[in-house]
């Protein structure tokens, strides 16, 4: 699929970048600019958000014919514990490192819930194949996006844009630290709703970061 191809592309890029770090255009060294990296991850996050939006709309259409708006906010998203800026000023006021960490935290927090969501979708047989594929794709994209953002962070740290205080959230310890039990209580619809919002946050934060760090490209 096209999306998996894009994922693969990002992985290739990140893999290449993981190779010898090239500060200068050395022979045989493939240098990717930070702006390009940002663009790629932003595109990725936009794609991810689009899928989550579609899934949410489908869910709302087939499983909640009566638009019971009240029931939507009956519970919190499991990621509500993560402090995320709710406004532009708040986001601009936040440091780059913090913002980066928020992004990473969000992405990490959603890896397992989406995987389980996909599993439950596949078993339910209520969703059509198209939605099932979307959930799988969504799950994969979260995983890949996190890797991509990590690459960006490493690049930024290498470039000295951000300090090295950003912890490596890929470590198993960080994964275990997340509240893994909360999301299991959530219904599928709520999961979708929450993830739709969080993917939007991620996309927005990445844009803010990019326009703050490399503003000359499309800001």
């Amino acid at each position, binding site marked *: 699929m096209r999306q998996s191809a894009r994922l693969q592309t990002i992985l290739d890029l990140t893999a290449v970048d993981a190779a010898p770090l090239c500060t200068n255009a050395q022979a045989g060294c493939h240098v990717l600019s930070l702006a390009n990296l940002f663009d790629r991850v932003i595109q990725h996050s*936009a794609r991810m*958000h689009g899928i989550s*939006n579609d899934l949410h709309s489908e869910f709302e259409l087939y499983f909640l014919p009566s638009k019971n*708006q*009240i029931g*939507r*906010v009956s519970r*919190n998203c499991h990621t*509500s514990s993560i402090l*995320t800026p*709710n*406004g*532009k*000023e708040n*986001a*601009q006021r936040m440091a780059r490192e913090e913002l980066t960490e928020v992004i990473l935290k969000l992405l990490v927090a959603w890896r397992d819930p989406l995987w389980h969501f996909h599993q439950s979708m596949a078993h339910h047989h209520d969703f059509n194949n198209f939605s099932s594929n979307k959930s799988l794709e969504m799950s994969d994209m979260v995983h890949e996006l996190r890797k991509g953002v990590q690459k960006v962070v490493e690049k930024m740290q290498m470039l000295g844009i951000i300090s090295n205080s950003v912890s490596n959230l890929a470590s198993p310890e960080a994964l275990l630290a997340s509240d893994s039990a909360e999301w299991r209580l959530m219904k599928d619809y709520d999961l979708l709703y929450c993830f739709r*919002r969080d993917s*939007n*946050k991620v*996309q*927005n934060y990445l*844009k*803010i*970061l*990019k*326009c*703050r760090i490399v*503003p000359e490209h*499309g*800001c």
Partner: protein
Amino acid sequence: MMKKFGEVILLLLLLLLFFVPHAEGTRYSLPGKPALTRCRSPEKETFTCWWEPGSDGGLPTTYALYYRKENSEMVYECPDYHTAGKNSCFFNKNDTSIWVNYNITVVASNALGSTFSDPVDIDVVYIVKPNPPEKVAVTVMEDKGWPFLRVSWEPPHKADTRSGWITLIYELRVKLDGENEWEMHLAGQQKMFNIFSLRSGGRYLVQVRCKPDHGFWSEWSSASHIKVPDYFHRERSVWILITVFFAFIFLIVSWCIHINSHSLKHCILPPVPGPKIRGFDKQLLKNGKSEDIFSALVVSDFPPTSSSNYEDLLVEYLEVYIPEEQELILEESKDLHDGCLKPKGSTFDSDSGRGSCDSHTLLMDKCGEAKDDEQQTDRDGSQTGSEAQRQQAAWEQEALTYAHEDMISPDMSSGRVKTWPSVFSPLPQYSLSPLSQPSSLETAKQHCLSDSLFPPASLSSYLTQPGQSTKEALRSSYSDFCSSNKQPHLLHPQPDARHHLQAHSDVNISSIGHKEAPAGLQLPTVQSTEYVEVHTVNEDDMVLLHPVPSGHSHGKGCLQMHQGEDYSKVNGVDKNNVLLLQRDVIEEQVDMCPCENQDMNGATESCCTSAQKSIPCIHTTLPVQEEKAVNGYVDTATMFPLPIH
């Protein structure tokens, strides 16, 4: 009863009291249920909600908006009811939280109570509708001489795209002034766009709008007018080029027409053939001298008096004069060219006075009517006992013979008249093979075609009808036969011709007295006929013939004419006006022209043309084979069994 009456009245009053206000139309009630129509955020930092009030219930109604944030039970009231207008609530930046679910409710209250609207959950992120793009600028630019529009704009000032808070995509539309169809263009995130393929001198309207990633399209910006200048100079050069090209083509075409004007004129307007008058001189006409004109018109040789050009066509007739004149002018007559209708007689003048044997005139007349008469007489079948008729008929026959012979026989030398012998040439065949009927017929046909006259039919008729009628019959049959030869199928209806042929062959000459009867003559084809000029007729009634010098065109096949003094001596004339000739030596064929014995003036004239001068006169042994030439022709062929050449 009074009580009841009182109750009734009280009831009526109550009813009246109840209905009076209703009748006046003032009925107070709770306010109607308001409804939130929409909430919009222009920059994802503030937002506004509008509601629609219900019926006010007749009482002053106040509206209040209350909202609750996500995961909080705190109810807040709208902070600003006025900024956004009536029935609106404006949330400023401090009160707006993104990615937070708002639960908003509008309450309508009046003296009687309040009515709550249905709650609405909104997330500001998803209700963003930016303002239209600003500072839309349209300019005309040129790209290698061809103009195009460059449209540039700026995002709405409230939308913060620079910090990446909002990402807008743009769309513009263009149309010609006065048209209804817009041309849409999606510009993406860029803030500049080029429009090509413009109409020269056109006036365009351009509008731009924008949309965030997930939100609503903004309104269209105000239309920007732009006029595309006329790039006529470009088109003019093209027209000049086209004009020059067509002028060039036109020149070439006209030159070609001029070159071929003559042939074209002939093609389109073929010249009308006009009469050409020989000797007509336009100059004379222009000079105006009529005498000269008309004198010029007079052709010296018209009517043709000289035989210089027409010798070939002249018909010379053999004239034999009866003793009283003691002169015989035997002229060889040349074949009539075409049925002897043309009196190209060179001998006209010389024959004056010898009316009876004025061959040329006679021939002329006879030939002219020969065919007609032949037809008539034949058809009529009437017998004319008069010799004149017979002679006439003979002449006709002769003429016909001449005509046919001339026309058909290739062997004949031009200008030579075929005489009997030629006509009779086919006959020997029949004598040889009398039973070869079909072949004889065919040969007869051939001979008829070649010799024109084929007398077998005439023979038959002659045999069957001896006598005067035979002549006509023969003639008719002859003509029929000959004509029938041209139509082979007609041959068959005359089967008896063959028999007659046989008979005739047996009969030979005896029964032949006619010119047609010459079927018995076994003369071969008249290849060469020598001309004999009858010189004198001696006292013994012998026609002395002199060979005519070969000044005449004898044509091919003409046997050598010896300039010997060979001639045929006329032995005498019997009672039947048959010319008896003496034959001395028979060497070659003797073509004896059928001579018509005319009993005019009691003189028998017989005209003979002998083909071969070498052949002397026919012997008088002929009497055994006397031929009764009814019409005065002597059939020497029958008299003398001449070898066939």
